[in-house]
């Protein structure tokens, strides 16, 4: 043994250097795993090095925490439940090291556990309690014991009130970041107190709270506030804003989307002092007229403006064109009233635009695309979804002029193979969405496969002309592909899956409605794509239990699966229970599924968090079983949608529900 130790060259390397190597490996979990399995000393080094942990089940916590003593960040989001016992274990074993803990989406812990955590882990600075809808004020009183807390997220904690927020405000004086989105019970008083007590606040998310201007005056006195989100605060209106002399001077980002009561009269009160404003979101608000746009004329630091869903006038857009600032990001998604003239006047002035979203601007034509591509050559992201008046020739311009594009959304457009040929010149492209592009064929995609080697995400939803050769070209040309959607591409066969099995990074595969693929193709993917986490094979009638067995064996990272309308039976499902990550399962309309088999499957898959089942099973499964599973952290969604008639291929566009993947 001794000799062996001397032979190991890594013994001569300082631990810090190995740590640096591990830091570089950090992105690849498999690599880290392999490293730790080399030898005992590597194992020990890796145990010391790891500082963040994302366990799947709370049952493993004791072993994990004793193996990794230096955990600073604990992410419990994958655990279907976290009991108080686990929390007190955490609070004992990571008493001094733990700095951040994430409970979002994790139900079933009580005030007591939180209190233990807050009292024992003195150095904790970040707690995420999002989606704890049952969380009561008393739990916040426990959180308030964490005196060093800087970051707290309470999104969707619907049961908390001003009292709890008041406790946090008094207890956690160092708080810098707090998210109270959808905490409907919190009003002016709680927020006002928060602003009075926590002077260091720099991020404040108050979306959808029933607050009025009463708390705004104390918020405006916060010296360090940089980001303020007031989305959907309907109680804030022009008249009351007028009283406010000036908003926060330090403000850098403001979101007042869906605040329909804030117009050009009230907006200046919020932003007048904030000359450093960089980001402004006015989505779904009052119409963007020249008077509204005029409010922002002098904000020279402004970089990003989002006007999604607003009514936009030409004058408004022209005024935006005259701003001091040079915008980097502009979103006009689903804006009514955007015309060629208005859009051109904006893009010709803001030539530095990096991101432009003109989704569903249905009035714009080729002229807009021409002026966009002409002026904004440094665009990295362009979303042109459903701009139906834009002809196929215009897409050539995008490829010709915007070579820096990384993200391109052409869903539901007239783009054709020629357009794709030019778009393949964008060698940086990582995300390409070509859903419902009925004019594209294999030819165009072969160009993409040759030109865009950095492609990570490809959406071909219902681009029906696509066949195996296109997928082959993509799989060969884009080795980094992580996500592909081939839903309803009816000519796709097992050969496509075989070629995709050569993409080792593939995480998401959607082949819904590809009725030609079989278990054989699925097996190839399972073997080749170890990282697969999401799989949707709904309506793949030829996939049966034979496809499940390799999945169960090889796809140990699989987290979400949709098997509706396939030919899988009890046996195939039961085999899936060996995938410990599996959390989300949709199993509707499985002919071979029996109540007894289902019960066995549900019991065997210990990590399940969400199961979509037909409503008929609700009465066929023993009530006690359902209760037990629910107590284990599994949520049931009972669907009683009757099997739809086969859609008429001509009218599927109208079936908006089905449009959503």
């Amino acid at each position: 043994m001794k000799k062996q130790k001397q032979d190991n060259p890594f013994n001569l390397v300082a631990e810090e250097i190995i740590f640096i190597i591990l830091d570089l490996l950090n992105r690849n979990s498999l690599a880290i795993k392999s490293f730790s399995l080399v030898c005992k000393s590597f194992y020990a080094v890796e145990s010391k090095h790891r500082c963040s942990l994302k366990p799947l089940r709370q049952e493993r916590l004791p072993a994990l925490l004793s193996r990794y003593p230096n955990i600073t960040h604990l992410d419990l989001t994958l655990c279907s439940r976290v009991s108080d016992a686990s929390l007190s274990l955490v609070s004992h074993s990571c008493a001094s090291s733990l700095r951040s803990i994430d409970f979002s989406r994790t139900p079933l812990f009580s005030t007591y556990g939180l209190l233990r955590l807050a009292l024992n882990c003195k150095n904790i600075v970040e707690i995420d309690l999002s989606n704890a809808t049952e969380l009561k004020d008393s739990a916040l009183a426990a959180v308030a014991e964490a005196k060093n807390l800087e970051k707290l997220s309470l999104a969707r904690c619907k049961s908390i009130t001003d009292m709890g927020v008041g406790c946090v405000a008094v207890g956690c004086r160092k708080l810098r970041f707090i998210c109270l989105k959808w905490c409907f019970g919190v009003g002016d008083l709680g927020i006002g107190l928060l602003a009075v007590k926590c002077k260091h606040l720099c991020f404040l998310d108050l979306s959808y709270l029933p607050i009025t201007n009463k708390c705004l005056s104390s918020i405006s006195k916060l010296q360090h506030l940089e980001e303020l989100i007031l989305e959907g605060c309907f109680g804030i209106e022009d008249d009351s804003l007028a009283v406010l002399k000036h908003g926060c001077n330090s403000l850098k980002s403001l979101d007042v989307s869906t605040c329909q009561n804030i117009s050009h009269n009230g907006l200046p009160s919020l932003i007048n002092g904030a000359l450093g404003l960089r980001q402004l979101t006015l989505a779904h608000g009052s119409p963007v007229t020249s008077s509204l746009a005029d409010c922002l004329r002098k904000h020279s630091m402004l970089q990003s403006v989002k006007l999604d869903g607003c009514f936009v006038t030409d004058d408004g857009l022209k005024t935006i064109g005259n701003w001091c600032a040079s915008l980097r990001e502009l979103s006009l998604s689903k804006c009514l009233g955007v015309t060629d003239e208005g859009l051109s006047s904006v893009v010709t002035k803001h030539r530095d635009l990096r991101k432009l979203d003109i989704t569903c601007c249905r009035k714009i034509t080729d002229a807009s695309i021409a002026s966009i591509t002409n002026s904004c050559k440094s665009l990295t992201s362009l979303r042109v979804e459903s701009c139906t008046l834009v002809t196929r020739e215009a897409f050539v311009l995008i490829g010709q002029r915007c070579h820096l594009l990384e993200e391109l959304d052409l869903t539901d457009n007239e783009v054709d193979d020629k357009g794709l040929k030019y778009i393949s010149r964008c060698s940086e492209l990582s995300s390409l969405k070509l859903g419902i592009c009925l004019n594209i064929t294999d030819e165009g995609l072969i160009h993409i496969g040759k030109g865009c080697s950095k492609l990570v995400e490809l959406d071909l939803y219902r681009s029906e002309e696509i066949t195996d050769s296109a997928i082959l070209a993509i799989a060969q040309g884009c080795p980094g592909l992580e996500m592909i959607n081939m839903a309803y591409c009816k000519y796709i066969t097992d050969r496509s899956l075989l070629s995709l099995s050569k993409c080792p990074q593939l995480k998401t595969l959607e082949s819904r409605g590809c009725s030609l693929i079989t278990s054989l193709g699925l097996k190839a993917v399972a073997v080749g794509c170890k990282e697969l986490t999401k799989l949707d094979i709904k309506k793949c009638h030829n996939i049966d239990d034979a496809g499940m067995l390799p999945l169960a064996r090889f796809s140990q990272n699989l987290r979400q699966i949709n098997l509706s309308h396939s030919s899988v039976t009890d046996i195939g499902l039961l085999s899936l229970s060996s995938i410990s990550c599996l959390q989300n399962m949709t199993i509707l309309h499985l002919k071979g599924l029996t109540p007894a088999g289902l019960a066995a499957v549900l019991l065997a898959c210990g990590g399940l968090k969400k199961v979509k089942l037909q409503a008929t099973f609700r009465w066929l499964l023993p009530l006690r079983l359902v209760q037990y599973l629910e107590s284990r952290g599994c949520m049931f969604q009972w669907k009683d949608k009757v099997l739809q008639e086969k859609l008429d291929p001509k009218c599927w566009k109208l079936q908006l529900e089905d449009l959503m993947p």
Partner: protein
Amino acid sequence: MLSDNRIKAPVQDGVVNQLVQASKVQDWDPSAMLDNLSFLEQKIHQLQDLVHLIIGRKGQVLGRPDELVVQQQQLVTADLTSIIVQLISTAGSLLPSGKHTLPAATPSLEQSGQFGGVVFPSAQGPLNDGFQPQNAGGSKVSGLPNSVDISRKNGNEQNHIIEEHELKDEEDVEEGESLIPGTYEILQLEKEEILAPHTHFCTICGKGFKRDANLRMHMRGHGDEYKTPGALAKPNKESGSEPTIIKRYSCPYTGCKRNKDHKKFQPLKTILCVKNHYKRTHCDKSYICSRCNTKKFSVIADLKTHEKHCGKDKWLCSCGTTFSRKDKLFGHIALFQGHTPAIPLEEAKAPAGPSDQGDGNQSTNKVGSMNFNFSSNVSSESEVQSSTDIKGSIDDPAGYFSPLSFDTCNFGGFHEFPRPPFDDSESSLAFLLSGSCNYPQKSED
């Protein structure tokens, strides 16, 4: 009117002197006093101007009929009377100890004539000197029995006490009194008299009034003879030169402990006691609290007091202070360092997850106890608390929450002061007595 012996000096020596004297007395509100004095100053200046005017006119229009002279005289006298009354009330607020002993030991002035003569020998003399007109007043106007006349002076003062401060335990207070049967006169009013809304009636037009003072004000409209200072002044029937028989009251309800035929008869002290006792004990409770819709009262003042404090939500601070309104609690917390909202206990017992059945029970128990600890920690750790305590009696929460002490601690009688006294004689008197009533609680020793 115990204060009168002290007030005599200020009347003669002037306002400044009064201030000097006043400063010797503890427990008075200087700012209210100052307001009051400046008001007086204004009044005096007005009167001065008036007299100047009269002098000037005398020079101009000589030989006018005597009527004018009489009118002017009346005007001046009325103004002077108002100033004097104002002065008395000002000085009255300075006499805590005297005020204290008066209502507790000697419930009515009649008694002070008897007992008080010993304790404050000088009390009666100066009073009569300074306020001659008072003796002259007091023409019997009401057709009510003798007993009601007593209430003319004391009854309406007592009324104020009740309405302002809700001496609910007044019946209890007098229980301590042990008068030997036979040493006092027992009066019994009929039910109709007790429930009558008005006790003072105008002999000319028949209009009814709750207070004698209001009636006197009303009488002015019936002719000049009612405008004389004597007619306007407070009737002071028993001048105190001869001792009066103590009067006690019996409830007309047979079988009641307060009825004179009861074996353990306990008399009621004043007319007001009779009224409130009868309404509370033998009448329907027709006033319902609009907030909780459950509490009922037969005396409207009781309802008002209850409504002040009614509210299902008691907003509680970690220091133990409760607030009837949430915004008040948050204002309090925003102001004081270390104070934090206290979460009610029942809520603190969060449901343990159904899966935690193993340690579920245990943990819920702990939650409760932890929470106790938790809140007590908070209150003890905040050393600021002691300095910022507004109310001193937090150690005794039971006493703290009782509405009576809450009332007396929080609301002094001074709120209503700055009103000009003669515009509404009621309110000026209210001030006088509410102020006096406020003190006893503070200077218990």
